[in-house]
């Protein structure tokens, strides 16, 4: 069985290490915050100017002056700090954020990512995505393995306008976990109930199966 969005988020949460500063993008990445392992202390960065983002507020406690980069109302945890957008992207650019988790439309087997534009349809803009992928030292993509038409999103080359080059380190999809290596996507885990053959069928980019590939624990 392919993973649910929540399970993808849960698997990515296993990558978190104590002391990490983490930026979570919109969509599945946002859910990662719900699965931070016990005993692991991470600080969430929101690129609109907040370190120490907490959970969504209780109903009636929303503060219009306190939102995340997805414009959702949020809260802060003790030890948080606010700053302007230049400092926010400054710390991203300077490599101070340990891990960035982003959604994607396409990922190429060389680590390129496309997640901001579909030509001919309306362009909404790249927001902070191009800054994040250009500068973050460790980027994991969280996405479905295939698009709604069933086509692979793990490609030999992005077909959509790219957001950044050679920047993705790891991809977690509903089918498995893939490191980006010089040989292409290296499958190190498959989802429970998913076969390596299914992954091979649904992956268009170069794919290698790790010798010690194993079933994902989520």
């Amino acid at each position, binding site marked *: 069985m392919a993973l649910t969005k929540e399970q993808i988020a849960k698997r990515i949460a296993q990558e978190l290490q104590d002391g990490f500063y983490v930026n979570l993008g919109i969509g599945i990445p946002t859910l990662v915050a719900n699965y931070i392992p016990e005993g692991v202390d991470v600080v969430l960065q*929101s*690129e*609109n*100017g*907040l370190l120490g983002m907490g*959970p*969504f*507020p*209780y*109903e*009636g*406690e*929303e*503060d*219009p*002056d*306190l*939102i*995340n980069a*997805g*414009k*959702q*109302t*949020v809260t802060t945890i003790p030890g948080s700090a*606010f*700053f*302007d*957008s*230049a400092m*926010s*992207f*400054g710390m*991203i*650019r300077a490599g101070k954020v340990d891990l960035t988790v982003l959604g994607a439309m396409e990922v190429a087997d060389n680590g*390129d990512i496309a997640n901001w534009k579909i030509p001919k349809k*309306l*362009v*909404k*803009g*790249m*927001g*902070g*995505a*191009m*800054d994040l992928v*250009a*500068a973050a030292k460790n980027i994991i993509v969280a996405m479905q393995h295939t698009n709604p038409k069933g086509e692979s999103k793990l490609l030999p080359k992005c077909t959509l*306008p*790219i*957001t*950044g*080059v*050679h920047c993705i380190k790891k991809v977690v999809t509903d089918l498995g976990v893939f490191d980006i290596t010089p040989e292409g996507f290296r499958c190190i885990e498959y989802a429970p109930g998913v076969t390596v053959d299914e992954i091979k069928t649904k992956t268009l980019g170069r794919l290698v199966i790790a010798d010690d590939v194993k079933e994902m624990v989520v």
Partner: protein
Amino acid sequence: MKKVVSGADEAIHDIPSGATLMMGGFGLCGIPENCIAAIVKKGINNLTCISNNAGVDDFGIGLMLHKRQVKKMISSYVGENAEFERQLLSGELEVDLIPQGTLATRCMAAGYGMPAVWLLAGIGTEVAEGKEIRNFNGKEYLLEMAFDADFAIVKAWKGDTQGNLIFKGTARNFSPLMAMAGKVTIAEVEHLVPVGELDPNEIHVPGIYVHRIFQGKDYEKRIENRTVRKKG
């Protein structure tokens, strides 16, 4: 030091059609509501707006778009606005989409007297087209120019009569950077206080950058994406 003006109408009275405006805010958070209303009322047009977002259909810069006052938007994300989409597709509106950190840093550069900055974002993408690229320490950077804005319009939480500003929460975002970058900077504040009331250690934008300031009123502070959890 006569920076305090009576309100938004006086603050924006000399903004001409065709001006380039920086407008603070992220989404609908921290936007200069009073000044936007006054600009809509005044009816100037052909404006170029440097603002991270373009508001929603019936709030924020969306109100200016609705009146077709904006010729060009320079933003990082504009995806919340049907009227924007219509004008863009019909060719009535130009849009220059740039990465959010680049937008912020090009504002900062202007306020810090730096003509241009070397930035990572967009290398290898269509954003890099036509721009100078240089390798520093093994990484490639784009040369991005400081913005040049006739007016910067921001909303702060507190301000004093000398123009010192303090922002609250994530309503800070681009506003301090823009306040420092404008040739003429206009600040509307939720709380206008006498000089001496703000702690000089806590000022986000020193008054030297602010030319006009006024006590704002009737803030709606609309929430774009109300997200809550249940108690218990």
